């Protein structure tokens, strides 16, 4: 672990279930939760963790928190082993689970007081949080809406001003105004040198707050990249209009960097190109072009490409 890395996940593998073969018949079922996942989160950054449903985001987060036993690999948080030093680590982290559930017969105030006994709340910061989140803390949790419950969950995670926040879809259920307030708080956290590891399906949120992202798919980490680089480097939309002959779509798709090619109309093609565009440009010199435009793809297009 380097000084800069708050979280280091190395070759994490988690397989659920068991499979047995008795007399040639298979019993049980193995499901890959995460396979050989490696990444690190640096001090003072907001790392976005993305992937389709069931890709392994929550498994990875729960493994980091030592709720799950991993079969292979290692996880260190603040340079400490996530299993052996779990209590020490938990003194310095805040967590909002994806499917947030809080004790329904407690009020928000009671929950803050209850958890204050485990990890002391920063009173001044709690006052600030009360002004940001507009949730009535005197109400029992079972009586408040999903969005308000999410706000209480965020308050609980943030109130002790932990060094490291693990947030599984932290703004799901929040209205846009509250989500924006949460984003502002995340950025303030980052400015104070604290670190956030968050999963989200909200790409606007990822683009707005994250420094780097990791994409996980079918239990495997397929990309870790700076958000800025991702947009400029990873996918471009190339629109080409031809004056005469149009190249065959299959030939175009055979070029390594071309992900897809489709005809917009009879003389214009729209190509999605990954990384190096030069090979495509060289190929196009064989044709007479009317117009050529190259645009960065949106983050959404990039994610969809990785998700599919």
């Amino acid at each position, binding site marked *: 672990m380097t000084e800069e890395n708050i979280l280091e996940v190395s070759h994490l593998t988690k397989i659920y279930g068991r499979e047995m073969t008795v007399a040639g018949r298979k019993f049980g079922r193995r499901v890959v939760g995460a396979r050989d996942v490696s990444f690190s989160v640096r001090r003072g950054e907001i790392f976005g963790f993305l992937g389709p449903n069931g890709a392994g985001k929550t498994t990875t987060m729960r493994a980091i928190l030592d709720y799950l036993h991993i079969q292979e690999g290692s996880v260190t948080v603040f340079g400490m082993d996530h299993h052996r030093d779990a209590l020490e680590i*938990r*003194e310095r982290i805040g*967590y*909002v*689970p994806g499917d947030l559930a*809080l*004790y329904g017969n407690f009020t928000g105030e*009671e929950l803050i007081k*209850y*958890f204050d006994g485990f990890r002391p709340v920063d009173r001044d910061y709690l006052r600030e949080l009360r002004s940001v989140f507009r949730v009535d803390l005197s109400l029992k949790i079972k009586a408040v809406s999903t969005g308000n419950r999410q706000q209480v969950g965020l308050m609980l995670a943030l109130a002790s001003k932990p060094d490291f926040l693990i947030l599984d879809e932290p703004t799901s259920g929040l209205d846009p105004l509250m989500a924006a307030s949460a984003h502002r708080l995340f950025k303030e956290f980052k400015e104070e040198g604290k670190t956030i590891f968050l999963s989200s399906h909200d790409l606007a949120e990822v683009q707005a707050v994250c420094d780097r992202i990791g994409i996980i798919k079918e239990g495997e980490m397929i990309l870790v990249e700076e958000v800025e680089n991702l947009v400029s480097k990873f996918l471009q939309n190339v629109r080409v209009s031809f004056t005469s002959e149009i190249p065959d779509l299959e030939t175009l798709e055979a070029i390594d960097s071309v992900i897809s090619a489709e005809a917009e109309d009879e003389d214009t093609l729209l190509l999605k190109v990954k990384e190096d565009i030069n090979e495509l440009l060289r190929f196009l010199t064989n044709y007479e072009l009317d117009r050529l435009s190259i645009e960065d793809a949106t983050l959404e297009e990039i994610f969809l490409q990785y998700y599919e």
Partner: protein
Amino acid sequence: MRVYLTNLRKGWKGGVLMPFFVSLIVPIMAGIWPSMKDQMAAFSEILKNPIYQALLGQLGLMDMTTWQGMFYMYVGICMEWAIVFIAILIPARIVASEVDKNTLDVTLSYPIPRWRYLLEKFMVYATYNLLYPAFVIVLAVVSTNSIGETLDMTVLLHTMIGFWLWLFALGALSLLCGTLFLESNRALSASGALILIQYLMTRLGDLGDLSFLKDYTVFNYVSTGTIIQNGGIPMNELAVVVGVGVAALAAALYVFQKRELAY
């Protein structure tokens, strides 16, 4: 002690009302005793039927013509059944209900050892269980005085301690089922099977040839019948019940501390 104190405060309604309602059997019995007293000799004859004897176990050996005999028979039956249901339903769900509702994820992200969290929650159960003997003792003293009868206070105290020890030991077994199975339905099925089978073995053991079955059940030790015959709790039986309870509790704490929370 934050978990213990908070849950003690939060659970007071169920924790106090249940023992109160169960203990109401005492004043009800005292109320009907004067009019039933003369019929108890005939009733005792009926209870000599082997089926009743098997159903009642050692409680069936009580002298029903006395207030003490009737008191212990009815309180014994009532408490046994209350204990069966309480021990099956409450401790097995201490963990399982949190797993069902998904509330453990947030709680365990705080720096509290899992075993301590579970122990403090079990202590809430054990504390409220003290109210069963407490209410019965208070109401027994008041009711007995009000009808002009007598009860051996030492036996009463020891009997009630015996009931609490059953709640503790069976509750710890039920808690172990909860930590092993995590999910409510499976945890309740396991604890229900474990406790009801013990109860059934005790009853079958009273049939004579199957008496060896009783040796393997918690209900066979520190039972009301034995305490009355002995004039107090036999120390060897106390050791068995406490031993089972402590071992089951330690196993539950160990399992919960070590096990994976995959759900």
